[in-house]
């Protein structure tokens, strides 16, 4: 199809679909390089407003466009109304920058941030006019590469992806672009890509693959020109990644294993990048991001220096730990900011010891007190239910802590004061490469009983409760630890209409149940099944750096209800992540 014809057809579609701004590109800081020799389509398998807010894709976009001869263009999963219209009118998936077909690119790179986007991965590939199964692709098709945290178990998508990138893409992306620039033939490209130690090519069998670790993170400059989304994005704010990795060792946390070791960015670099981003984006909010920003050694100095330049800036610190958070939060607080989030994860000491969350009741209460004392009027607390070894006392603990927080709030704001305690309880989903990878999810009936109890018990003024949909949690659990047969289930479900599974209005439980059934499996059994530590796991060939022996030892420690110390401050726990130049790198406070 000629370019002008394609553009006219796209314009025709846009007048008939919801939120056409999802598809038009042209945002501030987008890069258009029409003459580039290598063209990469970077795709996020969810709607524009979710994908444009993803920091990882923004980093890769800048990296390719700024440092290489290649052009990166963006693609997000078209909303069902648009996807249906595209199929009806024969419009292939196109990039936002130039409205060119994705199939004409050299590489389609898809980021895997969550298991519930897997059906959208197939949707993207199919809408692009690329055969869904990798084995059916020809020389005319681009290389389909997937990366991101969920690629750490590549098996559910192994039928559909040519190559998986393991780890942090800053470390190896330029080498991939070089190979694409030097070769034209698909087979030759795949042969050359197979030589890279951090790429897994399913067609070559389960060869061991090493996670790439961006060792230069601490000295590299932070991206400063992110694409500024139109108003509908879920996050509209500048953000600087202050630190990568976390060694707290929470036993349920995938990122806690996958991004080890800890690498902190220099405070001067954080301040410069933050102020530059604010200037070139027009945002009035800056977020200092990481897995636990309050643990960043330079957090208070960074806040102080940023606020010295912009005293009224809305500065947000997501993912705060209860023990280190309140001090940093108090420093970041300003008159416009009203809401903070703390993540105790579990409400009883016993369960916190099981999951290795090394905080005490006293610390939690002090954190709540400090938060309300700093003037925050909306306190959100994250918990999980369905954790291994959970009893009803843990669920009651969430209720008790919710009311205790309200009590502390009333001490600050009065009996009928204007403040809210938001209690959020998500369902535990075991993840690969974590000490809990061998554990099963709690059965759905049990989760629903606990949710019902929370709904009944956590009622009243100044208290709000939010819960996760058990159906989507079960699917997440079944896909996350899946194997190649799960890939067949995924394809069957997608062909029967599954897409946008994370959106409750589009989630099709019946379709997934039928697809699992057709493969001789049961969705709930897959999600709740415990794995035997002696049995091989589908992701055993993926080497995260953290040894399986360490994970198993941590599993045993959880059964003994014994937490493990953080290696930043309490000595090496011998997890295996530090090798050669790869070490924890902290900045001075």
């Amino acid at each position, binding site marked *: 199809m000629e370019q002008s014809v394609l553009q006219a057809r796209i314009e025709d579609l*846009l*007048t008939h679909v919801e*939120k*056409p*701004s999802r*598809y*038009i*590109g*042209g*945002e*501030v800081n*987008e890069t258009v390089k029409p003459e580039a020799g290598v063209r990469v389509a970077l795709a996020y398998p969810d709607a524009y407003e979710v994908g444009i807010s993803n920091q990882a894709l923004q980093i890769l976009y800048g990296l390719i466009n700024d440092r290489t001869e290649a052009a990166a263009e963006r693609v997000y999963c078209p909303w069902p109304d648009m996807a249906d219209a595209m199929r009806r009118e024969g419009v292939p998936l196109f990039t936002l920058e130039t409205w060119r077909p994705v199939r004409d690119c050299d590489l389609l790179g898809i980021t895997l941030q969550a298991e519930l986007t897997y059906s959208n991965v197939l949707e993207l590939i199919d809408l692009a006019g690329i055969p869904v199964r990798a084995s059916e692709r020809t020389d005319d098709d681009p290389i389909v590469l997937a990366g991101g945290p969920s690629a750490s178990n590549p098996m559910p998508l192994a039928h559909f992806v040519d190559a998986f990138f393991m780890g942090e893409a800053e470390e190896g992306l330029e080498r991939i672009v070089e190979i694409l620039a030097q070769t034209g033939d698909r087979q030759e490209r795949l042969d050359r890509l197979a030589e890279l130690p951090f790429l897994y090519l399913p067609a070559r069998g389960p060869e061991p693959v090493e996670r790439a670790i961006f060792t230069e993170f601490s000295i590299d400059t932070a991206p400063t020109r992110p694409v*500024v989304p*139109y*108003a*509908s994005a879920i996050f*509209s704010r500048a953000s600087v990644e202050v630190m990568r990795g976390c060694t707290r060792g929470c036993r349920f946390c995938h990122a806690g294993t996958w991004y080890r070791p800890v690498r902190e960015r220099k405070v001067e670099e954080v301040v410069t990048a933050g102020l530059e981003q604010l*200037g*070139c*984006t*027009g*945002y*009035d909010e800056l977020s200092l991001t990481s897995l636990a920003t309050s643990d960043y050694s330079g957090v208070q100095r960074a806040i102080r220096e940023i606020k010295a330049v912009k005293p009224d800036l809305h500065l947000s610190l997501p993912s705060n730990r209860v023990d280190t958070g309140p001090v940093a939060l108090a420093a970041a607080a300003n008159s416009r900011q009203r809401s903070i989030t703390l993540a105790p994860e579990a409400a009883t000491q016993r369960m916190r010891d099981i999951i290795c969350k090394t905080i005490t009741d006293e610390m939690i209460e002090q954190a709540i007190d400090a938060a309300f004392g700093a003037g925050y009027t909306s306190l959100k607390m994250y918990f999980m239910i369905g954790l291994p070894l959970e009893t009803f006392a843990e669920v009651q603990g969430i209720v008790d802590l919710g009311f205790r927080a309200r009590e502390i709030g009333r001490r600050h704001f009065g009996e009928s004061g204007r403040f809210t305690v938001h209690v959020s309880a998500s369902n535990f989903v075991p993840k690969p490469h974590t000490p809990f990878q061998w554990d099963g999810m709690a059965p759905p009936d049990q989760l629903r009983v606990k949710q019902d109890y929370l709904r009944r018990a956590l009622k009243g003024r100044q208290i709000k409760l939010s819960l996760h949909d058990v159906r989507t949690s079960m699917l997440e659990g079944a896909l996350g630890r899946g194997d190649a047969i799960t890939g067949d289930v995924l394809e069957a479900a997608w062909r029967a209409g599954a897409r946008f599974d994370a959106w409750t209005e589009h989630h099709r439980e019946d379709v997934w149940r039928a697809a699992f059934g057709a493969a001789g499996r049961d969705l709930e059994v897959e999600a709740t099944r415990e794995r035997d530590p002696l049995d091989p796991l589908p992701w055993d060939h993926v080497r995260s750096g953290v040894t399986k022996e360490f994970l198993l030892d941590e599993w045993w420690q959880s059964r003994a209800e014994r937490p493990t110390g953080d290696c930043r401050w309490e000595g090496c726990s011998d997890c295996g992540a530090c090798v050669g130049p790869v070490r924890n790198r902290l900045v001075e406070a």
Partner: protein
Amino acid sequence: MRIELRLAIRDRARYLSHLEMVDLLLAALRRAGYEVALSNGMRPKPVISLALARGVGVASEDERCTVELIGDDHDPAALVERLSATCPRGVVPLEAHPAGPKTIVTGATYRIAFDAGEDDLAAALAAYRAATELAVPRRSPKQRRDIDVRRFAPEPELTDGAVIVDIAILEDGSAKPEEVARALQSCADRDLRVAGITRLAVHTAPRARVGATETT
């Protein structure tokens, strides 16, 4: 200082919604180094408004925005220049001047282009003008009602192969240019496909002074 900005919304930017346009202009002003004043009250909001909401997909050569900037000595020409560098593709600042007394919008002129020959368009226009009433259904999530398009846009004309139409805003409402296009389509013997709609001008009148409240 209150400033009135005139912008053009071209190409793909015409698919931006009214709210997206407001947010986009606020960010573009911040990037250009201007601070927008906030309203008073419990929940202060930036003081910015667009004179007339534009339908998604409709381009504009006369998008009018009034914004209150902090400070009293802003050079309108410099503002246009700086804003031109910070607006996204397709959003083009044309001119700026200190805002005068408040006005009300009385109507707008649109250019509606069709993929059709002049003869077909002329026939459709003749039928349109001859009709005494042209009801076009307007659907919202809550209700469906018929709009007599003819009442708000009585005299569409054919100019340079496209329809130029003035649409009035009356006390009881107005018609959308898409509805005028649909009315024209209903008057045609053949299929008239809309190729594009552009707002050419917004018409305003001085706001009537509010006197003492009358009681009846």
